[in-house]
């Protein structure tokens, strides 16, 4: 049994090593984009079952963004929604025999956390400009600037660690149990892993919304205050 902390390259594209997580990620991307295309091509004013599920997903996502971030959903829907759908699909990909979820690998979770970190900057700058975003670190007072800077990094790191720890541990435990017991024994643990995967996807998306909303709110507030002064 290989260590879950290590990524083994299956093959190389030039100097670039292609790991199993990348391949599974590509498969998930193909699945999601293909499903999205199917839904897109079948969009109708009178929705079928697939379209109804898709619209339910969009509605739920919009409601979550509206309730959590207190902003209009369209600007954030694609990023938050894709994070949730991708992490959920990646977590549940462990149900496919022989497939290790990409979120069980540190690089994938780090990439997701990095994107959240960058999106906070991106949306903060869009909401309050560069000055407004940077000024958001000085709230509630400039003394808090070092702590706010550290917090912006550590909270993204916490995302990484939380998702990686939960998914990796689930896969690791199932692997251990599977190696020790029969074929049917890990099934309860796999069911629990499904629940854990859904909860972790939800937590990751909600925390991403909270981080973005916090920065957007503070940057927008500082920007508005500066405009009032000018």
């Amino acid at each position: 049994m290989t260590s879950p902390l290590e990524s083994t390259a299956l093959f190389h594209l030039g100097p670039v090593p292609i790991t199993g997580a990348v391949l599974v990620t590509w498969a998930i991307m193909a699945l999601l984009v293909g499903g999205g295309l199917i839904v897109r091509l079948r969009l109708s004013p009178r929705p079928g079952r697939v379209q109804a599920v898709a619209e339910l997903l969009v509605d739920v996502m919009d409601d979550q963004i509206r309730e959590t971030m207190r902003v209009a959903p369209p600007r954030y829907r694609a990023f938050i929604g894709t994070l949730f759908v991708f992490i959920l699909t990646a977590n549940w990909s462990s149900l496919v025999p022989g497939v290790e979820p990409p979120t069980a690998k540190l690089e994938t979770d780090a990439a997701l956390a990095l994107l959240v970190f960058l999106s906070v900057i991106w949306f903060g700058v869009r909401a309050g400009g560069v000055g407004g975003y940077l000024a958001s670190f000085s709230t509630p007072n400039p003394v808090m600037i070092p702590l706010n800077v550290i917090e912006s990094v550590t909270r993204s790191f916490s995302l990484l660690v939380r998702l990686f720890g939960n998914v990796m541990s689930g896969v690791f435990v199932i692997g251990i149990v599977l190696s020790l017991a029969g074929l049917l024994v890990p099934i309860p643990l796999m069911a629990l892993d499904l629940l854990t995967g859904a909860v972790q996807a939800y937590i990751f998306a909600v925390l991403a919304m909270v981080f973005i909303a916090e920065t957007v709110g503070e940057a927008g507030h500082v920007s508005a205050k500066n405009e009032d002064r000018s």
Partner: protein
Amino acid sequence: MTIDWWTLAIQTINVLILVWLLARFFWRPVAAMIEERRQTAARILDDAEKKRAEAEAAEKAVAETRAGFAAERDTLLEAARAEAESLHRKRLAEADRDAAARIAKAEAAARDAHQAEERAWFDRAGDLALSIAGRLAGRLDPAVIAAAFLDGLVAEIARLPDAAKAAAALPEAELELVSAAPLGPALAETAQQRLREALGTTAALNLRVDAALIAGFELHGPHFVVGNNWREDLARIGQELRHDRRS
């Protein structure tokens, strides 16, 4: 623990691409379809609300029209009732007038008939009285009757105005004595004598017989007629009777 930076970069790019692809092919189209359906539903609801308002307005107009019909019907009924009442009263009044006219006409006719009958009976009574009087007079002595009526005639002449008596006393005055029955010579002479004395004249009186007098005399002078006979008496009695009945 080591991190494969290549894998980190590839996964970051992968997720970014996935975000872009899903935004383009899933999130935006589905959200647009939801919004389109929401707008369609809102438009349909607005149209339905508009049509409902129109239907309510039409219903209200129909109700008002019906109320107008009812009011108009009530007005027409009231007018017809009033007209019928007026016509009824008019007919009643006309009937009353017609009945009153008919009654009055009948009463007048009855009264006329009664009067005519009364006159006829009166005439018959008068004729009967004349007949009775004539028969009674026929049973009496004509000389005695003539003497009695002659006395009355003289008394009547005495009550004449002096002017009339003076005119009768003139020599050219024509005097005529009308008797109910022919006078005998003696009675004629007596009558002539007494009347000349009463009138103060010497002229002879013309004698004439008129049975209509029944009994008695009648003297015709230049400007007067003096009578004392039963025809005048009966006529006077009849007038008095009619006068008494009317009063």
